[in-house]
């Protein structure tokens, strides 16, 4: 790790001030940022720790409206009783992230802000039509995830929470990279008031995306059989040593089928 200056922010306002310096970076759970710094692939001048800001933590479920504070850990999301009731697919997704130790530290805000193409949460937020709330504004998930590791966040802008309406039914299934255990393909299916939305993580060469093929198949009938025969085009999918685009395309259909089965169970 290169030398760095550590700052612990007590409030969002303080964090925003501290992030004003050019190469400063916000540190939430650190599960991606710290490994990148250790291997000297990331070299921020300053780290602004958001982990001690009380305002950023917690889950509120009010009727079907759900808000998750940005500094809420994956373990907290996975284990929250009210959330498990209102949107079990989101809690299930959180329970599949990394490993138990990573889930104790990693946060939803960190994951969303980083927008790793192999991360899970972006698929959920996109499929749920969630809103990402920052210290400055609210952004629809649709407009938030702009590319590989790219988001609509501006300099010194901090995610404070994400919110969404609980879907009627939803499910998430992922196929892990056998080595890293990140998603090679993760499919989140959600059936809500506005219809069916399907988002895919891990596979797109521009990051998380919605699959129109799967959405139209499921709009008619929200059943595993409805997607079983859908062929997802491999054109814009990633290809690497662990999974070719063709294999990913096939896995998207398989995971979608299983996610629908889970949603309906």
């Amino acid at each position, binding site marked *: 790790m290169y030398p760095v*200056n550590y700052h612990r922010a007590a409030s969002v306002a303080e964090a925003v001030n501290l992030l004003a310096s050019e190469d400063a970076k916000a540190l939430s759970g650190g599960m991606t940022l710290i490994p990148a710094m*250790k291997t000297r692939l990331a070299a921020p001048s300053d*780290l602004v720790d958001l982990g001690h800001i009380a305002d950023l933590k917690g889950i509120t479920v009010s009727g079907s409206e759900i808000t998750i504070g940005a500094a809420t850990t994956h373990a907290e999301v996975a284990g929250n009783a009210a959330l498990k009731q209102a949107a079990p697919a989101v809690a299930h997704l959180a329970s599949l992230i*990394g490993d138990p130790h*990573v889930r104790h*530290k990693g946060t939803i805000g960190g994951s969303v802000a980083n927008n790793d193409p192999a991360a899970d949460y972006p698929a959920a937020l996109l499929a749920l039509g969630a809103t990402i709330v920052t210290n400055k504004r609210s952004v629809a998930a649709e407009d938030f995830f702009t590319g590989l590791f790219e988001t609509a966040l501006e300099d010194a802008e901090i995610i404070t929470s994400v919110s969404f309406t609980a879907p009627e039914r939803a499910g998430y299934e992922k196929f892990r990279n056998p080595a890293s255990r990140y998603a090679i393909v993760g499919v989140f299916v959600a059936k809500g008031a506005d219809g069916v939305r399907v988002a895919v993580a891990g596979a797109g060469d521009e990051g998380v995306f919605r699959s129109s093929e799967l959405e139209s198949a499921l709009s008619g009938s929200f059943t595993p059989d409805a997607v079983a025969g859908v062929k997802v085009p491999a054109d814009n999918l990633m290809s690497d040593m662990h999974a070719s685009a063709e294999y990913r395309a096939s896995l998207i259909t398989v995971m979608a089928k299983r996610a629908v089965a889970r949603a309906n169970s």
Partner: protein
Amino acid sequence: MSDVSMTVNGKRVSAAVEDRTLLVHFLRENLGLTGTHVGCDTSQCGACVVHVDGKAVKSCTMIAAQASGSTIVTIEGLAEGADLHPVQAAFKQHHGLQCGFCTPGMIMAATDMIARHPEGLDEATVRHELEGNICRCTGYHNIVKAILAASETMSKGAAKAA
């Protein structure tokens, strides 16, 4: 430099460290608690697992300053006096270790796992929960056995206490 202070294995400790110091290095180099190990660079092997404020975390993926103010338990602080913790005893009894390098992380992960599953554990759950800990010697067979046995012992102990 950062001034960090925390409670480690029941003792208050403070030091001034370079901001880039990882928690694992603070424990090993500043405090001489070398039971916590470093086995990889990518937060996957779990040899470095300790408990921070009661939760198992990877001490190689946290800078020491982040942990300032926290309460930490490492492998050295798990046993109460001369009595082994039930998980330590089970690892010994069931030959859940060979070279011993992954063992501290395994044991710290296992105690956390058992605490999070008061309802008890089965083999599939244990194997799934060991996602973040890699062992090269045992093939996990006896680690799984040891954790299941310790879980059993501890739930009996808890039932007795209640």
